[in-house]
């Protein structure tokens, strides 16, 4: 009886461990695509103009170099998003570095960050928005799965 109880406890423990690991994976592995816009932002009647050049960097690696009205993107796993942006107001100017720190909303796949708005220090809801992809072209063409399986595989 005691032995059975212990076996049961071990099993429950294993299941609990797996659940904990899954929860951790769900948290750290959630992937987002973050889009950076170097676009003029209108907010509460005021205009925050785009900059001459913005360079998004993750540590030393350059993620995107954006001229006016350009958009860059980066993949990011987890919720704590952290990168830097180098801002050039005009050609030959001294670059100013700002941190981009953001808690990515779990439910959003694509997140658009308006850099001029962020640099200007506006509240977060002003410069963060959800990216909604347009329906992929030609999506209607895809047929139902084939009824006969592909019996001669090309690769395994």
């Amino acid at each position: 009886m005691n032995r059975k109880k212990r076996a049961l406890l071990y099993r429950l423990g294993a299941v609990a461990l797996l659940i904990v690991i899954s929860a951790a994976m769900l948290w750290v592995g959630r992937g987002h695509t973050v889009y950076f816009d170097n676009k003029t932002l209108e907010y509460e009647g005021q205009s925050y103009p785009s900059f001459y050049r913005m360079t998004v960097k993750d540590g030393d690696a350059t993620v995107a170099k954006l001229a006016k009205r350009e958009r860059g993107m980066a993949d990011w796993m987890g919720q704590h998003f952290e990168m830097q942006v180098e801002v050039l107001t005009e050609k030959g100017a001294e670059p100013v570095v700002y941190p981009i720190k953001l808690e990515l909303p779990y439910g959003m796949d694509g997140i658009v960050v308006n850099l001029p708005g962020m640099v200007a220090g506006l509240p977060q809801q002003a410069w963060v928005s959800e990216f909604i992809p347009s329906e992929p072209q030609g999506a209607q063409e895809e047929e139902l799965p084939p009824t006969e399986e592909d019996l001669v595989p090309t690769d395994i």
Partner: protein
Amino acid sequence: MKKQSQASGAGAVARFLRQNSVPLMFIIICAVLIPISGFSAGYLINEIVTRMGRNIFLILSLLIPITAGMGLNFGMTLGAMAGEIALILVSDWQIWGIPGIVLAMIVSIPISVGLGLLCGKILNMAKGREMVTSYITSFFIGGVYMLVVLYMMGPIIPIAHSSIKLPRGYGIRNTVSLLSMRQSLDNLLAIRVLGVKIPTLTFLIIGLMCLGIVWFGKTKLGQDMRAVGQDIQVARDAGIDVERTRLISIIISTVLAGFGMIIYLQNMGNLSTYSSHTQIGMFCIAALLVGGASVEKASIGNVFLGVILFHLMFIVAPQAGAKITGDSMIGEYFRVFASYGVITIALIMYETRKRKAKLMAGRQLQLAQSEDVK
């Protein structure tokens, strides 16, 4: 089964040839086809290493049911389907990279256990013809898989992303891209040796799995399985719960096949929703047999040798066929034929051996009886 003959030199050679006829045949096939195909050694080694990382785990899942005397587990397809369902869900939840793979493995466990339980129960009802039954079971569950993936995913099991959902609003597309976790297991810790990329982590996992199988063979449960595999009646008399032991062996095999399929698909980088699993069981079994395994005996060495030989043939056959006949389809059909052929030969050898053993036992019994009369 054991021949009483004196092991003279020629006899030993003949026996060696007979016992290893299938691997030897494939060595000859490869030796002929490789020069014709004209592939460079570097290319072939690279391909073989990739395919070892991709397939070995799947094939390892076949070993335990063989120990338990249940033959080649065609029901490993069930595990593959569980792995696929887990991957579809995880890619819809947008969990990427290694966390995605780990999560998919965890999600596949309950599905695999459920399917393995079902398969094991069915096989316990069909003792003596496990193989054909597990083979039909894989088709049957294939139908259920289609029901789940093609009709229930969307309305019943929520699927959010239109990139994996069919345009009609329910069901999963023919291919699901696994780009976000593609080769993330293989690339972590990967090293290059003389231009060959070695997926160290994947091999590490495979190595651990091999150790695990060896360890499992030494546990009480592993010993029970071997006993059940040798003789069900004797095992039952020794107080082993035969049905339960067989059930567990199938469940373990199914779970491992699920993991194997996830490793396989993360390397491939995309999932053919309705066909990835259909052939995988057959090719894994063929590879294992090419490595010199039989229906009642298989080792880890067979798995490694089999993967190398079988995939070497698989890579070079189309090219060699095209060079000989000018039609690449010939080579593709040839490798399919070779796969089925080798399974057929292995099954025939197994059944004839079984029959011979039975006859021999009968004769000995007769002999013993006649001596008793004297």
